[in-house]
């Protein structure tokens, strides 16, 4: 008996799907449907996933966080209208590249703080503004800067769960006794970043 294998009759080229996907991302951006755009960038601390809403950069994620888990979380927390769409992240990717090659000491991209509420957001905003490239501060110092000198533990948690690491430089916050303290990307990544900035 002769069977007709229909799927084999319409072979799909990966290039076709790549092209159509890019076309979809462009159309979604045009129609204001692209609630979350993401891409990955290579870096000395491994592949970083970067994601942006129309408001700005909302997430930077390390490989050890599991990129698929991070995308699922963004989909649940922000919107499932989420696509791999590199164009929106061109500026961020370029600035990260400059940062990792030592040519850039600060980031100039809009940030979307929606994943950080209340005190955590206050802490991270102070962190982004007050602790400069190449310097470190203790958790206690950051607690003081944030207006709650006793909230050292909360500051530690905030740094450990910073949704926009590297760009919001929680790697510059270390323990008062000089120990590194925790880091979302792992202690090795924290050390690489401090080393890069000449602060280790």
């Amino acid at each position, binding site marked *: 008996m*002769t069977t007709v294998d229909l799927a084999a*009759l319409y072979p799909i080229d990966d290039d076709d799907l790549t092209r*159509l996907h890019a*076309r979809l991302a462009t*159309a979604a951006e045009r129609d204001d449907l692209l609630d979350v755009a993401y891409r990955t960038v290579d870096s000395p601390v491994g592949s970083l996933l970067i994601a942006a809403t129309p408001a700005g950069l909302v997430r930077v994620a390390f490989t050890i966080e599991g990129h698929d888990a991070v*995308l*699922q979380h963004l*989909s*649940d927390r922000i919107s499932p209208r989420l696509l791999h769409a590199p164009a929106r992240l061109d500026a961020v990717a370029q600035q990260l590249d400059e940062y990792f090659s030592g040519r850039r000491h600060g980031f100039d991209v809009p940030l979307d703080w929606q994943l950080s509420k209340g005190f955590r957001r206050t802490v991270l905003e102070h962190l982004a503004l007050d602790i400069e490239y190449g310097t470190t501060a203790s958790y206690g110092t950051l607690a003081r800067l944030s207006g709650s000198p006793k909230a050292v533990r909360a500051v530690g948690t905030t740094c450990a769960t910073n949704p926009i690491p590297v760009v919001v430089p929680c790697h510059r916050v270390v323990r008062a006794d000089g120990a590194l303290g925790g880091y979302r990307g792992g202690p090795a990544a924290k050390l690489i970043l401090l080393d890069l900035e000449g602060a280790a």
Partner: protein
Amino acid sequence: MKQPFEKVVVQHGSTVLRVARAVLGHADADDAWSDTFLAAMKAYPDLPADANVEAWLVTIAHRKAIDVVRATSRRATPVPDTPDRPSHDHAEGHHRELTEAVAALPTKQRQAVAYHYLAGLPYAEIATLLDSSAAAARRAAADGIAALRRSYTHDTETESADDHR
């Protein structure tokens, strides 16, 4: 748990493109695919988390294909794969003849064959799409496959069949 839309595109992009190519032909399939996924992305937040995503996409693709046909209604029958590249390669020529045979099927047979055999839609759902009964949808698909088998058999009988298994 609802997946990010990116996963929907990656998981179902090939099937939707195959269905679009079978139903519309190669030339219009890209437009139908793009219209389908853009409309799906718009509606996706409201889709129930336990919905059959592929069936939902095929439903949208069915409607978008009709729109594309209306927009390019000068064309009476769809253009099959690789229409303007005559092939001397036996397998490729054979392949072309089969896609032409699909394109030559009556519209409902072509739709029923594509939705069932490419997308795995049950006949009850195909019946809803084609505005007919499940029995009629099953018959349309069976008639379509029978016609394709005839062209396949005809082809292998009239040409050397040694490279077909």
